[in-house]
């Protein structure tokens, strides 16, 4: 199913369609860098993670890190993309202080991963398929620090040589929303398979955004590339601003110059960085220090076997096998940690109650999404920090299923669990919150209430059915909410 809403930029000459393609740079999760043994960890002291190769000392040579290759292949497989068993590293030559070699080792002509696609969720059941053009491996550069000294620039090479995957989409997106959803989905997939942590604040994922505008049906317009956009919100803002800018220029009789632009998040606008004429001639050529990258079917098979269930497949299973709603399934699969928690919870419930997954899945999903997520959001905690474990959650839900507490009481119990970390059973026991299902006790209470409210009894019996709720409320009030509602209903009907 494709999106049915068409996004346009309104101009004086009519509606403009926008065309967006993204190059997402995703830092590979690996212990070491792409071509050296130095640590790829984030947050170390400046220049703590720099090998002789990363600093481009004379005579140093790159040696490919097989784990980075495996991660790229896994990512390619997760994107349903073609895997190239033969690929090649090229040098991209340019001078910059934080590029010690004077070239970046990248893959220009023969990338490790070819075409694939990503199905993007747009909400309300709408989806969009975005094509992947290619994925290649390349080295990250270091970082220039201009604010450490009044008239010198410092260079931190910790990132120098860290492995990046550049994932290039086809120009398939037609709205800021689609671009944002694409980045979100890509991030979900990478995090699922553990090939990138997707942490945009730390820069482990960032996007170059290509934007052009055209009248519907026209050929592609001239595009501008907005470099290094580092949040999903900024991606959408940059596209919106840039499309408007381009439409205004064209409608004023101007031409779009192909150029590289920067997004200024403070002003919410893009500005020119360098024109096509100023663009570097990177003088790509095959890196003679490296052999072509080749691997066999066994390597691919192993990489494939190491993939977890992917979000799309998981969503289908959640709806089809577990009977969840599409919305709930989408929410649960969006983050692997959430899906993992849900599945662990489900397993605990099945273990505790002996019931089938499908019987308990809806209740579990509702509890995770409304109760657990609600509390986590309120306290700003990640699911990995949840004070209530899946087993703890299962225990609570079992108390409801077994009729020990009502759903209403369960919310209070959960609140205490969340605060104190105590188990549900202990809290129920301690506070005496067990549901009253003893028919004798409830019957006695009902008798008292009927006796004490003759007017209402008469009115009910005279046909005012709505008053039934009044009696239920009275019983609940008398039992502090602990009376089993089913038992109350049954007895009340009998007595009235």
């Amino acid at each position: 199913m494709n999106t049915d809403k068409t996004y346009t930029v309104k101009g004086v000459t009519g509606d403009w369609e926008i065309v967006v393609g993204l190059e997402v740079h995703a830092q590979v999760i690996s212990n070491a860098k792409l071509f050296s043994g130095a640590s790829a960890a984030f947050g170390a002291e400046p220049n703590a993670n720099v090998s002789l190769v990363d600093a481009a000392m004379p005579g140093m040579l790159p040696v490919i890190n097989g784990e980075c290759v495996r991660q790229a292949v896994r990512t390619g497989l997760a994107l349903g993309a073609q895997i190239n068993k033969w690929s090649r590293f090229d040098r991209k030559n340019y001078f910059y202080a934080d590029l010690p070699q004077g070239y970046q080792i990248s893959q220009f002509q023969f990338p490790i991963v070819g075409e694939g696609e990503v199905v993007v969720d747009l909400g309300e059941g709408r989806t969009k398929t975005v094509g992947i053009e290619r994925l290649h491996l390349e080295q990250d550069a270091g970082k220039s620090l201009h604010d450490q000294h009044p008239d010198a620039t410092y260079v931190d090479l910790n990132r120098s040589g860290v492995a990046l995957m550049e994932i290039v989409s086809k120009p398939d997106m037609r709205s800021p929303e689609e671009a944002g959803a694409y980045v979100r989905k890509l991030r979900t997939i990478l995090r699922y398979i553990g090939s990138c942590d997707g942490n945009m604040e730390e820069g482990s994922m960032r996007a170059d955004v290509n934007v052009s505008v055209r009248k519907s049906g026209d050929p592609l317009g001239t595009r501008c590339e907005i470099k290094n956009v580092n949040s999903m919100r900024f991606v959408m803002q940059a596209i919106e601003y840039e499309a408007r800018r381009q439409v205004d220029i064209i409608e004023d009789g101007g031409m779009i110059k192909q150029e590289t632009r920067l997004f200024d998040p403070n002003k919410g606008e893009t500005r020119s960085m360098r024109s096509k004429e100023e663009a570097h001639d990177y003088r790509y050529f095959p890196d003679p220090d490296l052999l072509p990258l080749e691997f066999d079917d066994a390597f691919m098979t192993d990489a494939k076997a190491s993939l977890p269930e992917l979000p799309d497949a998981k969503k289908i299973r959640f709806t089809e096998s577990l009977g969840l709603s599409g919305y709930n399934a989408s929410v649960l699969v969006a983050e692997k940690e959430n899906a993992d928690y849900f599945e662990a919870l489900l397993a605990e419930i099945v273990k505790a109650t002996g019931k089938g997954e499908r019987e308990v899945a809806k209740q579990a999903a509702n509890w995770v999404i409304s109760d657990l997520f609600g509390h986590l959001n309120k306290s700003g905690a990640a699911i990995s920090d949840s004070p209530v474990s899946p087993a703890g959650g299962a225990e609570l839900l079992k108390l409801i299923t077994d009729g020990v507490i009502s759903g209403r009481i369960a919310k209070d119990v959960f609140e205490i669990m969340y605060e104190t970390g105590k188990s549900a059973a202990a809290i129920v026991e301690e506070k005496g919150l067990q549901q009253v299902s003893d028919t004798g006790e409830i019957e006695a209470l009902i008798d008292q209430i009927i006796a004490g409210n003759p007017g209402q009894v008469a009115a009910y019996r005279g046909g005012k059915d709505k008053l039934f709720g009044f009696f239920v409320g009275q019983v609940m009030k008398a039992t502090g909410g602990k009376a089993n509602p089913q038992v109350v209903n049954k007895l009340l009907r009998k007595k009235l």
Partner: protein
Amino acid sequence: MTDLTRLTIAGARDGLKKGDFSARELTSAHIAELEAARALNAYIVETPDQALRMADKADQRLKEGDAPGLCGIPLAIKDLFCTEGVLSTAGSHILNGFRPRYESTVTANLWRDGAVMLGKVNMDEFAMGSSNEHSHYGPVKNPWRAKGSDQDLVPGGSSGGSAASVAAHIAMGATGTDTGGSIRQPAALTGIVGMKPTYGRCSRWGVVAFASSLDHPGPFGRTVRDTAIMLGSMAGYDAKDSTSVNRPVPDYEAGLGKGVKGMKIGVPKEYRTDGMPEEIDALWQKGIDWLRDQGAEIVVVSLPHTKYALPAYYIVAPAEASSNLARYDGVRYGLREKVDGGGLDDMYEATRAAGFGDEVKRRILIGTYVLSAGYYDAYYLKAQKVRTLIANDFHSVFKKVDALLTPTAPNAAFPLGDKLDDPLAMYFNDVFTVPANLAGVPAISVPAGLTGDGLPLGLQVIGKAFDEETVFTVGQAIEDAADFTAKPEAWWRD
């Protein structure tokens, strides 16, 4: 020359094992000789203290009976090899004061086997040159002079300091690197043996890169046996060099002495170039006769793409160099030229302008040009295709013959300054050596005779990839027959 400096590596090794003299004595003799030979300008850095320490350690190992083949043998190291704590400049001002904190794999292998470092020897800057005149540290002089002349001659290049030091007996052997002939051509011009092994045999790790796909570390010695001993130590798989080849290294020395009887030796007709001096042609013919006389079958063969080798080389090598030398930017090590009020680009320009010599700049410009958008296909890509054709030429000819015999260089040593203003004439010195680099196959230069002026000439033997043994065997057959015993007069001693 003393009795000790007259020895070959093999001879010295035997003497050390027998206890005829100590490693300290052998090293001291060489230190004294090299200090008396500074007129040659062969050494950029002399490391006598370190040499004696290493010699003492060698003596200890000899005493303990743990003495590998090179134990106590004093060597000169081309300044392209990074040596831990010792100035390593690649003959360039841009590596001013650079002392690496690491040791190249090849030199580490030599030290593992007990060899002693006398110092770092001069070379054309970044190994670019065929005369050793393109060094920041000044030209090296060839120990040889024409009969009755006191004109200074070039030792060849780029490993001119390596060749001169071995020829002048101020080192028993030397390391070199050969990107287009930089071991074989100077060996020929100084009357010694120089071996370029198969690409991938000797690790490039820790060797300052010129053109990565063409750079071959290799040995110099005064005999084929000595180079075989040295290569046995230098060679070997190195996981730190992705182009290193994981194959066992044969005992090259043990493989010597088999003789060429029954071998097929190819004589490539394309190597007979126009304007080749008569003397060189005659020497080549002599070599052919020697091998035939020793029982080899001589076959005239064709390597049809030979004439494209030099032009292809002078595209591929500068292209790689232009990229390899980008790291010398003044940011992290070596020279930094600051410009008052200038920015990063100004520092790059000033540093690289001051740090690189003219020949290096020329090749960076050529390399940058041939890789540029719009020219890449016409130059670089075409040259790579030519390279494939040249490799195929060798591949098919080695189905028919065991080795090839050619001259090493188109001329003997020439006067300093003679070709300095004519880069093409200089580049032409590599015409016979470059094809083996493009194909990565092993080749050796063996001294085979003298010109009428009394200057040495070499013959080149080229073999199949990873068949250094046959190359050594044929080289030794030439060596035996040539009986090259001439030595330069020690005019350089003061």
